[in-house]
């Protein structure tokens, strides 16, 4: 009982305002919240939703895991955007806590990596909190009806793209485009704790 109370208290202290983690089948939270995209325009998750599905990637500029995966994220996002998947990358970090995640740095990174999809600022970290996201990178894939069908990692090897054995997100995107349910629906990987505002 003490353990449960302590865990709840600790969670409340460390993760204020964090919603419970989304479960498979849940709808897109905060989909109408406007976020500033690197092109200067405002964008929302609902506004980029695709006919076949929607991919939301919480990522950032500085985290080594995010940086290791961002080339793969760019390739997947760019490719599947052409197949009816709406794609958006969201940076939830407070640049005061992590200066490398400033808006200007995001613009530069999106250009360098050739993002053909929005890379937007979660100005209050509220969108990340609504998703229950805790780290970068963290991927959420919703199907055509806006239901969560995959959550977790890009693949099973952040450090070495050539040594990947299971391409979780790629496989999930293929399934969603085909109107099928991804399997597994959830995976995990190490990541950098979000620097909440």
């Amino acid at each position, binding site marked *: 009982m003490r353990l449960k109370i*302590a865990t709840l208290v600790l*969670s409340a202290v460390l993760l204020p305002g964090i919603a419970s983690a989304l479960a498979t089948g849940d709808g897109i939270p905060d989909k109408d919240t406007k976020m500033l995209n690197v092109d200067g325009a405002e964008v929302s998750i609902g506004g980029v939703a695709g006919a076949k599905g929607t991919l939301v990637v919480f990522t950032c500029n*500085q985290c*080594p895991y995010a940086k290791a995966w961002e080339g793969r994220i760019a390739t997947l996002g760019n490719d599947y955007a052409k197949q009816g998947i709406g794609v958006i990358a969201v940076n939830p970090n407070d640049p005061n806590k992590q200066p490398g995640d400033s808006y200007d740095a995001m613009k530069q990174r999106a250009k360098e990596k050739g993002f053909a999809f929005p890379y937007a600022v979660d100005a209050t970290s509220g969108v990340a909190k609504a998703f229950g996201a805790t*780290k970068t990178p*963290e991927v959420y894939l919703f199907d055509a009806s806006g239901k969560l069908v995959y959550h977790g*990692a890009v693949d099973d090897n952040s450090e070495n793209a050539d040594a990947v054995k299971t391409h979780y997100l790629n496989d999930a995107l293929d399934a969603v485009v085909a109107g099928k349910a991804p399997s597994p629906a959830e995976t995990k990987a190490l990541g*950098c704790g979000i620097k909440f505002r």
Partner: protein
Amino acid sequence: MPSRFPSTRSAARLVFAALLASTSAVAAEPATSGRALEPDAAGAAGIVPTQPALVPASGPQVLDAVKTSGAKVVIVNLWATWCVPCREEFPDLMRFHRDYKDRGVRLLLVSGDFSSESDAAREFLASQGVDFPSYLKSGNDEELINTFDPQWSGALPATFVYDAKGQRRHSFLGPVTYSSLEHEVAPLLVATP
């Protein structure tokens, strides 16, 4: 990543035995080089390396080391050189380790750095006064995460407290402090005969 160990259980025991031996080795003379020593070499030579050894290990291998430690309490801390809250909590972790190691508490450090950053990891450990070998995470991340706590998302830092039977008694899914560690560990020391 291919395992360096002959078999999981025996290898984990070998590594942990070497970790304990190295921890107890007293520095009779300064290290003769900055080269990181393997755990068994460090213990055998009685030399404290300038940079501690960093041994690749999977989640199950670290957990096996927990269960075979013989300690009253084992603290497993997941950290990385680039993780600011990890670096910020480190002094408290090390101070707790120094204060409680003679009371049967063992500290197992597991770096989440990429293998290409091993040198940076060892440099940081040395700068924090870590004079015992520790681990560099190896193998599948999901297996590692679920080994320690299926409720853990994988965000760093994270710290797990195990009792004398190797049962997880508390998960810190975020930074720790000296007092928060003491709050969870002290009762386990009293409870242990």
